[in-house]
């Protein structure tokens, strides 16, 4: 039987790791869908209707799975983290309720119109629906990240004693909601969602472009996929550099507000000056994978880089080591390696963006098979970067559930038994593996089916029409 605290934490980790995939898909797809709908209505070109209808299918499935997994997350605050919910409910419940009313309702109701209502409403209203669905997904992020960022940099509260128990009392809602971390988190998350979806689109499109132009296998709708690839590259050129530049500001902010997390990101145990930033770090001993210590790793580093990152330009700056904090260190290996994977991927995406733009500029976009393969291989790496980023954020904050206010070990429901928690944990692991398998299966089928046929009479063909009956629009 797993200890209820450990089981609850693992269960929450599994839930969030799986859940975040779906909001990333829907938040990232939203601006593309608004653009496709706009162009479809303005230009009347079939390719934009195809783009809209193809990607809306993926959006719809992601939304359904995101609802299922998101509701679980909301409930888990009550079921598994009752002590936390009682302690901080005053700050935490409000944003969650507001998210439901302000954002989720908007998204879910107008999504009905966006998916099913093309022929039932005017063009203007249909376009408005696409905007409101997108707005809903982004507003969701606002309120969820308000709740999360408050746990990283809590503000606008005081601790009071009620019935012999300490509780958080909200004193200044604006300071609490727009705490210092919020803006960093929101920009970083939203930009990464668009970047991840751009990479996913590019990867899928590159597969068909490669098949058609390089391998010479006839692909229906080859023009559709070239268009998709180009749109994705434009999005990547904008988001990839922004993510890394913004990440640099974010890291500095983390050092200022959560020095213990920053030290874990750098695996720095002793307080030092002139700390290098290891771009690549190789363990010289297997034990160093699980227990990385910056000093002992063989690394290619920028001298003074970490000091520079933390201080905003001073390579001599002193950085507090993990040993200087009273609480135990977070799981350093996980944070250290996750941070490196995320940053490494961030730079790789910039390279990919410039490589693709160069080829496009030279008119060689459809011929460069190495580029196509790089895109195919990177199609899911945006999501990997998001996952590792969240691992840095959430694991790096340990042992605190609310930074410097509440320890994670004190946040779990007092009445929860090991048997209950182990049972649901096992159920989650099994259920979520199945869920991810089904999601992957559905997405694969949507991709294999390709963009929908647009018939001349304007009537949408039934979705049940066999794939063979589809006629390519560009031949």
């Amino acid at each position, binding site marked *: 039987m797993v200890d209820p605290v450990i089981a609850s934490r693992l269960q929450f980790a599994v839930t969030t790791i799986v859940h975040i995939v779906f909001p990333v898909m829907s938040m990232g797809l939203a601006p593309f869908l608004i653009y496709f709908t706009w162009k479809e209505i303005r230009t009347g070109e079939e390719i934009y209707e195809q783009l809209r209808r193809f990607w809306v299918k993926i959006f719809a*499935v992601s939304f*359904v*799975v995101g*609802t*299922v997994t*998101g*509701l*679980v997350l*909301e*409930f888990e*605050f*009550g*079921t*598994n*983290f*009752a*002590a936390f*919910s009682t302690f901080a*409910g*005053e*700050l935490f*419940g*409000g944003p*969650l*309720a*507001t*998210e*439901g*009313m*302000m954002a989720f*309702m*908007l998204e*879910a*109701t*107008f999504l*009905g*119109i966006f998916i*099913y*209502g093309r022929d*039932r*409403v005017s063009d203007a209203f249909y376009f408005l629906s696409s905007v409101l669905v997108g707005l809903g997904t982004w507003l969701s992020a606002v309120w969820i990240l308000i709740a999360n960022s408050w746990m990283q940099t809590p503000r606008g509260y005081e601790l009071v004693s009620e019935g012999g128990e300490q509780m958080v009392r*909200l004193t*200044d*809602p604006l300071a609490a909601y727009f705490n210092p971390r919020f803006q960093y988190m929101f920009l970083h998350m939203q930009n990464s969602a668009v970047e991840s979806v751009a990479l996913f689109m590019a990867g899928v499109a590159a597969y068909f472009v490669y098949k058609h132009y390089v391998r010479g296998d006839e692909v229906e709708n080859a023009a559709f996929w070239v268009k998709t690839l180009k749109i994705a590259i434009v999005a990547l050129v904008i988001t990839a550099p922004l993510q890394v530049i913004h990440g640099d500001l974010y890291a500095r902010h983390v050092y200022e507000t959560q020095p213990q997390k920053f030290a874990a990101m750098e695996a720095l145990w002793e307080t030092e000056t002139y700390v290098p930033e290891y771009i690549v770090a190789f363990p010289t001993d297997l034990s160093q994978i699980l227990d990385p210590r910056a000093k002992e790793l063989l690394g290619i580093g920028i001298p003074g880089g970490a000091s520079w990152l933390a201080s905003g330009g001073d390579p001599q700056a002193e950085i507090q080591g993990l040993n200087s904090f009273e609480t135990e260190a977070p799981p350093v290996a996980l944070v250290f390696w996750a941070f490196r994977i995320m940053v490494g991927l961030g730079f790789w995406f910039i390279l990919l963006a410039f490589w693709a733009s160069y080829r496009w500029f030279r008119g060689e976009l459809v011929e460069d098979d190495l580029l196509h393969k790089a895109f195919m291989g990177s199609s899911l790496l945006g999501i990997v970067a998001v996952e590792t980023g969240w691992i840095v954020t959430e694991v790096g904050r340990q042992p605190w559930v609310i930074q410097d206010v509440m320890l994670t070990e004190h946040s779990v*429901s007092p*009445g*929860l038994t090991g048997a*209950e928690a182990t*049972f*649901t944990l096992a*159920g989650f692991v099994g*259920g979520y593996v199945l*869920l991810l398998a*089904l999601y992957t*299966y*559905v997405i694969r089928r949507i991709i294999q089916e390709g963009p929908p046929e647009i018939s001349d009479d304007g*009537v949408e063909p*039934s*979705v*049940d029409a066999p794939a063979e009956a589809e006629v390519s629009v560009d031949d």
Partner: protein
Amino acid sequence: MTDLASATLFGLPLPEIWFGLVFFILGMFLFLDGFDFGIGILFATRNDDHEKETLFAAIGPFWDGNEVWLVVFGGALFAAFPEVYANLFSRYYLLMFAILAALGLRGLSPEMYEEREDDQWRRYWGWAFVVGSALTPFLLGMFAINWLTGVPGIVSIPGVLGGLAVVALTIADGAAFLGLKTRGSLRDDASAYGIRAVVAYLGLVALTLVAIYVTTPALQSALLSLPVIALVLLSAALVAGYLVATRRGEYLAAFASTAGLVFGLVTVIAVTMFPVVDRATGLTVTEGIVSTLPLNIMTIMMALLLPIVLSYFGVLYSVFSGPIEAEETYG
């Protein structure tokens, strides 16, 4: 800010208002997602592929939005009564996860069903849809009655009876909605099931109340209070109204009477529970309520957002009003 922290907005009895609001939101969920559940259960009675497709098409544009009322129920309870949220959800730990699993099955199965055409696949996901649609209201009914009685375990006689009552109510709800969305034999069959379900509901809800009376002495006087008796009589009248309306083919009236029945049920639960908000801990509404500043802020948010959200639903239901056309499907 100091004004907002010192007294409730306009001196309103906000703890009581939020207690009512939480049950109103639960009622919205049971009524709106209720017809999705009912249609999901009636799915089991259909053999014809086209009819099954029509049932999916009937709920297609709506169910996502309907389900969000459960998200908001959780959020509102958390925001207004954080301690109740924490105690209740952790006390009925396995029940909450069973609800989530059933709801997940209901949400995923139509997507999966549409994915492939082979018989075995469709039979499997069709049943998953039925099971998810039947289990969710059953477990939610159990949850609501357990919340009222405060029993320590998950399975109790009043809880099971209450669960069955809610299932019957969703079938009546779904049948009335199908009256508005379908034609011909599908509609006639649905109406026949709806009539039986609404009568069964009345019997089951009466049995549930008797079971609560017998097992929970603390609630006896509340159950015999005037409002509860009046609501039970009103429910009986609404059941009669449903029967008459369905026989006459006035499906909107039948649908409206299920709305009355749902809100009648949640009001009975709320009135019987009040002023306690969590019987197991004895916490009252005024003890469990969040402190004044967040309470006022949430009240302002709700006052602004609730009419807007209701208008979204007005738009959605008017865009998709009227019976399903032959070519409409779920995907």
